[in-house]
Structures are given as C-alpha cells and as structure tokens.
C-alpha cells in the first residue's frame, strides 16, 4: 500500500517536472518510478516516518500564517541591518516545544529558523535553544508561543 502511494506521488512529481508527454518518455518515467520504489523497498526505508496526507493538508493550512510571519520578521531584520547604529542585542534563550512527535518538533524548529531574527541552535528532546538577533525577538515570546500552538495543531496528535 505504502509503495503504491510512493509510486503515485513520485509519478505525479515526475509529470510536473518533465512536461514531456510522449509515450516513450512516459514509459521511461513509469520505469524510473518503479525502480525507485523497488530500491526503497530493498533499502527498507518505507517506514512509519513518512508523512500522512492529513498532516500535509494541515501544514498547507498553516503555511500562509508562517509566510506572513516570515515577511514581518524579514522587514524587521532588514530595518535593523540598515540602521546605522546596528541596534542588535544577541540573546540566547531556552524554549519548551509542546509537540509530541519528532516531526512536529522539526517543523517547529525549522519554522523558528525560517523567521529571520530567531535561530534554533540546539534541540534536545523538548528543549530548544534559540538565538535571537535582538532581545525583543526572544523576550516577547508571543509569536513563538503562537507558533508553538499552531505547529501542535499541524501535528494533530493530542
């Protein structure tokens, strides 16, 4: 079942990337997809770490908010860089991730890194070490807390 899903997703991906729809090339595409699935089965990497469809849909619902945050913090960091006095106050802070699975924590840590001004430097279980460009980036914490709750919703295991 999982291999069939992988093959279908791979083939859709191949169709999007190729853009050629002659029988020979389609045949080669099908052949390469089947070959990849066969190798994946042999390597035993078709395990439970794959992403479920519902999680993908929730992630897509989450991404507009993430893009908005990225946009806001980008403007903020650009303003800091272009200010002649360079008003930075680098700060290290510890965070508690609310997510229960590794995948959820990865999404949360990557979301934090994606918004400029905050970088995840260390993940140890639920403890995240965040480096903030300014004191306010990690002190206010409202955005990170909201992100935490939203990523837990994306994860969906509660």
């Amino acid at each position, binding site marked *: 079942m999982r291999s069939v899903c992988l093959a279908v997703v791979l083939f859709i991906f191949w169709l*999007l990337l190729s853009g050629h729809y002659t029988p020979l090339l389609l045949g080669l595409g099908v052949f390469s997809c089947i070959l990849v699935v066969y190798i994946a089965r042999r390597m035993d990497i078709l395990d439970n770490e794959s992403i479920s469809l519902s999680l993908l849909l929730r992630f897509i619902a989450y991404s507009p908010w993430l893009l908005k945050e990225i946009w806001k913090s*980008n403007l903020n960091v650009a303003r800091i*860089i*272009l200010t*002649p006095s360079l008003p930075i106050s680098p700060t290290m802070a510890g965070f508690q991730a609310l997510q229960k699975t590794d995948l959820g924590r990865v999404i949360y840590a990557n979301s934090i*890194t994606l918004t*400029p*001004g905050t*970088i995840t430097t260390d993940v140890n279980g639920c403890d995240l070490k965040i*480096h903030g460009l300014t004191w306010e980036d990690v002190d206010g914490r409202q955005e990170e807390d909201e992100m935490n709750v939203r990523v837990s919703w994306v994860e969906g295991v509660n």
Partner: protein
Amino acid sequence: MIAIAADILSWIGIIGGVFFIVVGAVGVIRMPDIYTRLHSAGMTDTMGAGLMLIGMSFHEGITLVTVRLILIWGFLLFTSPIATYALSRAALHGEVTPVQVNFKGGSS
C-alpha cells in the same frame, strides 16, 4: 493589459528579491559574529529567493514552469533552515561563544 500588469508584478517581485539579497549581504558584513550573521544570511534564503521566484512566476504566468518555481521555493524553505541549524550547531560545538552584550555601532 494583463500582460503589463504581470510584467509590473514580476518587476516588483524581482527588485524586491534583489533588495533583500543585497541587504542580507550587507548584514553578513556588518554583523559581529557567526550567529548574528546567520540571521541576515537566512534573510536571503527566505525573502530574497522567495520574492525573486514569485516575480519569475508572474513573468511565466500559469504554466508548468511556475509549478516548478513554487516547488523550488518549497524545497528551499525545507532545506535552508537545516543548513542554518547545522552551521549554528557546529559553531556551538566548536565553542564559539556568541556575542551577548548590547552591541552598538561598527564592527568588532
């Protein structure tokens, strides 16, 4: 009319992307240590590349190329934080102490 609008939007996107990439490069030069430099380098990944790809998609219209551009942006958004994380973790592991003071003006 629509072609002109698409052209204007693609110009806005590409110029915005170039702006963020230049500002990110300036930031890399101005920042005092590796951790703060990563912040401005991250800006080129997300907004710089993102806005440029958006501008290019407007230029292309709704074609397969646009789908590929969006896929490229998606992969960038998934991979660039991992590279940033690896760099900062390597720096921490190598015991590069971050600048913690309230820093004002110039480079150290």
